[in-house]
């Protein structure tokens, strides 16, 4: 594997901690199996919950009879939507998407209608988990099955079965008179698109489809809830954001946030799927009813069928360019399935569709469509992977038609500082051009691909990244170490990447910082670990806390050295004044003897996007007899702004690429005609394993983010975006067939090759 930092973009090597690769702070716990995940908890008197789920994709719930289950010895409580307070129509931002609490409550436990197969209808708590499952089977639910709608184009038709009788499309146009499954219609416009296409020498328009895919985190959703006699509720859970779980619980259960404590345990992956609550409110209600702590852990099929995959889509993208390779106009029509409730990821999808290019004229129409599938959620750069598949395939075809090298064509049109996106924002300094150039300079690009049935593809991807609220406190210990208390749950090594920024600012080592992720009672409000924001925003808070500590240390040094604080200077963690000098550590020891405790505080709420770009270069080989695609070589180049811990940045780039490859080649929700998912297991929902991937080469580009003291942009999400189109473009060069549908699974590829040879 080659790992490189593109030399032209490297920031001056003045850092002592940032850019190094210390061992992560939680490594011993993780590699020895001592890290505590939610399912490891065994709270005294704990009982177990299980769900009753709808066997129908769409059905009216006629009645629910829990009496037989309640008579079983060992069964302690049952619960239905009647046990949840009446929901209210209130919309809140959870950091990576908004939620309407009426919809959320209806998703947690179905009200009146089950809207998808697997929709939770009731739940039961019993003294062991097998008994709970058995009791769940004895809860009798009478359904009146209704026709279901499973595909976004069908769901948009006038005669489609309606999921929500009252749903009126939210649109800039006139309010429709009749309800439909179209929850919203988003429109963006820049310039005059007709003029733009008139100026084009070549115009290409294509239609694309993608399948529903799941984040595929290894740890199922799991929570333990304890509703105490004093009315306080405590929940241990696997979540990307303990504070947004608290917020959702407070709204769903109509209780003050101060009555709720969320303890985030270690988390086995989230990727956007562990922000919304599912089992937490149900465990809480069951605990309230039986007076004991209740654990609910989902089974894998429940995770697939009843949590939040990311949507299927239907997209039409049209682009025009002049003979000399300048894009003139773009038009996109995008319909994403939201699942059973409004509020899918069409918003960011519509904003990202042309985000890599400087397009003078463009329009985007985006539709949020409800249908009888689980409520969709964010998945790593939500919406951007879909639209990149469409745009980057059309870009590739345009370049080919114009006989221009695919990287040169992209460089000709790449978004840069000053480019205005179709949805409005103007980019500050961004690094797409540098990423494309780094790919051109790579060993991979310079090594020709030879052999039959092989092809090479290129694609770009964009993700905004966000800021949002973060809080940390940092306590200087008597031995000169610093305990860093933070609210960002650590999914990708952020304990260390945040601690390193504190260490760099203070002039101490990463090992001298002890990061702790704590519960919602023990730190200030912190938004989700999502939006690639944590190393950026919580790192910014850690930087502020370090400056706060430094100020207090200066004051204590002045007191010890009997001089004015103005006379104390700090450089590289060494404090000097009145002819004396002490390291941070030594000064901390002295300060502990004489002064008040030193506690730093950092609270931030940056409102900016940090704008991440990635470029993929991929070589494939296609077996013409079976349609199976083998990834021969894969390079991902990404602008990290500044890679705080390069190993974790590479890990994110490789992990995102692996998920993008899975999305491209095999992953899909495979539905039967009855609206049942046929492959709700890791056996048949085919994520790539290590046998299916080459070592993924990484090139980190560092174009500093002007809005962060160390230039951090955030890196987690964008690497999932370019793989599907890069692979589609590579398969085209291997087979001569262009693909417009994901996944490009062996039967699909074989069919297309066969169609080509038989002229179908």
């Amino acid at each position, binding site marked *: 594997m080659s790992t490189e930092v593109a030399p032209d973009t490297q920031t001056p090597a003045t850092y002592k901690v940032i850019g190094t690769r210390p061992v992560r702070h939680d490594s011993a716990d993780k590699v020895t199996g001592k890290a505590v995940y939610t399912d490891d908890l065994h709270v005294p008197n704990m009982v177990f919950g299980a769900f009753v789920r709808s066997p129908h994709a769409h059905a009216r719930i006629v009645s629910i009879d829990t009496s037989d289950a309640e008579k079983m010895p060992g069964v302690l409580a049952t619960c239905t939507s009647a046990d949840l307070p009446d929901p209210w129509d209130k919309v809140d931002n959870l950091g990576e998407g908004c939620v309407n609490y009426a919809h959320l409550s209806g998703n947690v436990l179905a009200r009146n209608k089950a809207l998808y197969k697997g929709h939770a209808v009731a739940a039961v708590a019993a003294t062991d988990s*097998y008994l709970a499952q*058995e009791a769940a089977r004895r809860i009798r639910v009478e359904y009146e099955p209704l026709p279901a709608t499973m595909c976004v184009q069908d769901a948009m038709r006038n005669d489609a079965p309606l999921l929500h009788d009252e749903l009126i499309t939210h649109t800039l146009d006139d309010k429709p008179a009749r309800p439909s499954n179209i929850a919203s219609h988003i429109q963006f416009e820049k310039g005059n698109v007709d003029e733009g296409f008139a100026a084009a020498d070549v115009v290409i328009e294509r239609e694309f489809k993608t399948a529903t895919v799941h984040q595929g985190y290894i740890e199922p959703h799991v929570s333990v809830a304890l509703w105490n006699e004093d009315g306080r509720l405590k929940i241990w859970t696997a979540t990307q954001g303990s504070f947004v779980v608290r917020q959702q619980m407070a709204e769903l259960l109509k209780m003050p946030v101060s009555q709720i404590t969320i303890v985030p345990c270690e988390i086995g992956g989230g990727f956007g799927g562990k922000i919304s609550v599912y089992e937490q409110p149900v465990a809480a209600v069951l605990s309230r009813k039986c007076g004991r702590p209740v654990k609910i852990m989902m089974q894998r099929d429940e995770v697939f069928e009843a949590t939040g995959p990311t949507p299927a889509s239907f997209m039409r993208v049209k682009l025009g360019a002049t003979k000399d390779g300048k894009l003139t106009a773009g038009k996109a029509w995008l319909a994403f399935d939201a699942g059973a409730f409004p509020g899918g990821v069409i918003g960011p999808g519509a904003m990202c569709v042309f985000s890599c290019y400087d397009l003078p004229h463009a329009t985007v129409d985006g539709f949020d469509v409800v249908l009888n599938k689980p409520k969709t959620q964010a998945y790593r750069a939500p919406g951007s992977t879909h639209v990149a598949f469409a745009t980057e395939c059309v870009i590739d075809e345009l370049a080919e038609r114009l006989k221009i090298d695919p990287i040169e064509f992209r460089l000709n049109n790449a978004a840069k500082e000053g480019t205005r996106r179709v949805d409005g924002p103007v980019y500050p300094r961004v690094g797409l051009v540098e990423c494309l150039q780094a790919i051109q300079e790579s060993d991979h690009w310079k090594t020709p691909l030879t052999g039959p049935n092989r092809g090479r593809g290129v694609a770009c991807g964009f993700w905004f990244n966000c800021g949002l609220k973060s809080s940390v406190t940092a306590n200087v210990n008597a031995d000169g170490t610093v305990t860093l208390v933070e609210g960002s749950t650590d999914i990708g090594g952020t304990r260390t990447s945040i601690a390193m920024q504190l260490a760099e600012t203070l002039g101490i080592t990463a090992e001298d910082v002890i990061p702790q992720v704590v519960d919602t009672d023990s730190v200030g409000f912190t938004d989700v670990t999502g939006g690639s924001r944590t190393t950026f925003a919580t790192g910014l808070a850690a930087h502020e806390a370090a400056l706060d500590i430094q100020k207090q240390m200066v004051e204590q040094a002045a007191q010890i050295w009997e001089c004015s604080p103005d006379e104390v200077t700090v450089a590289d963690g060494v404090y000097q004044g009145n002819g004396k000098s002490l390291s941070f550590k030594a000064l901390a020891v002295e300060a502990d003897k004489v002064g008040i405790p030193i506690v730093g505080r950092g609270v931030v709420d940056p409102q900016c996007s940090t704008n991440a770009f990635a470029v993929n270069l991929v070589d494939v080989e296609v077996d013409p*007899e*079976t349609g*199976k695609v083998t990834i021969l070589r894969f390079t991902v180049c990404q602008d990290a702004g500044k890679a705080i811990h390069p190993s974790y940045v590479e890990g994110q780039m490789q992990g995102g690429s692996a998920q993008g490859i899975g999305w491209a*080649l*095999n992953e899909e929700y*495979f539905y039967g005609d009855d609206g049942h998912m*046929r*492959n709700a297991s890791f*056996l*048949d929902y*085919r994520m*790539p*394993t290590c*046998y*299916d991937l080459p070592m993924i080469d990484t090139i980190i580009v560092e174009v500093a983010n002007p809005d962060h003291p160390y230039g951090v942009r955030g890196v987690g999400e964008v690497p999932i975006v370019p793989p599907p189109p890069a692979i589609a473009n590579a398969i085209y060069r291997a087979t001569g067939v262009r693909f417009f549908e994901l996944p490009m*699974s*062996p*039967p699909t590829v*074989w*069919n297309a090759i066969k169609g080509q040879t038989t002229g179908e």
Partner: protein
Amino acid sequence: MIDFEYAAPTQLDEAIRLLAAAGDGTRILAGGTDIIVQLREGLRSADLVVDIKKISELTQLKLSGDKGLHLGASVSCRRIYDDQNIAASYPGLADAVRIIGGWQIQSRASVGGNLCNSSPAADAIPPLIAYSATAHIAGPGGKRMVPVEEFCTAPGHNILQQGELLVALTLPPQPSNAGSAYQRFIPRNEMDIAVAGAASWVQLDQSGERIEQARIALSAVAPTPVFAVDASEWLKGQVVSEEVFAEAGELAKRVASPIDDMRGTAEYRTHLVGVLTKRTLATACQRARK
């Protein structure tokens, strides 16, 4: 999964008595890699689980020049490929047991269990059929022998009667000019169930240019693993060539009656039968010449 009784007899007759006395809710446990998953996921239920791994006859694995391979019903996959002589003498079987799960599964799962689970997509059954293996069954009425191609009757169903137990599989001795191979097609490279599978066994003449005998068996393309009789018969006397392999593949496709499901369409699976038959015949012939 709800509670069940567990028994682990050490004698074959004791096991048969237990099985004969018990009702429909009796399940046999060898490696457990199918039955435990099925019980946990509610696909099957059990009142009594009879563990047969402690019966010595069922764990015997013996290769002899005149009798061939004796494969006790609960012998793990791993013991087969760990024995270099066995793996070299029965490469088609070794191909299959090396790709059933990962090595942890292979250390538990048995070929006998794979046969008794009677999945249409079982990897070990096509090579058994290609090798003309015999199933040795014991029951309250005594012992009987059945060719493996007659063992499975439907997905998850087979000829075992109430109280009967598979004791062993025997594979005939292999002449030096015989060769075999098994391949399955899966979309990934590991951890998957066959979309289609094919095993080919050939015996060549002295020159190594002509096929004297051949047996082709398929998986995942019919309600049970199937013996491709016509393709096998047609191959007798044919000269070894890519064209002959391809033609045999076309003939093998005729016994395929696959379904459309999440693992592949019927059309695609039928097509794969041709590809896999061709490819396994080529490997089998290559191995026969060594």
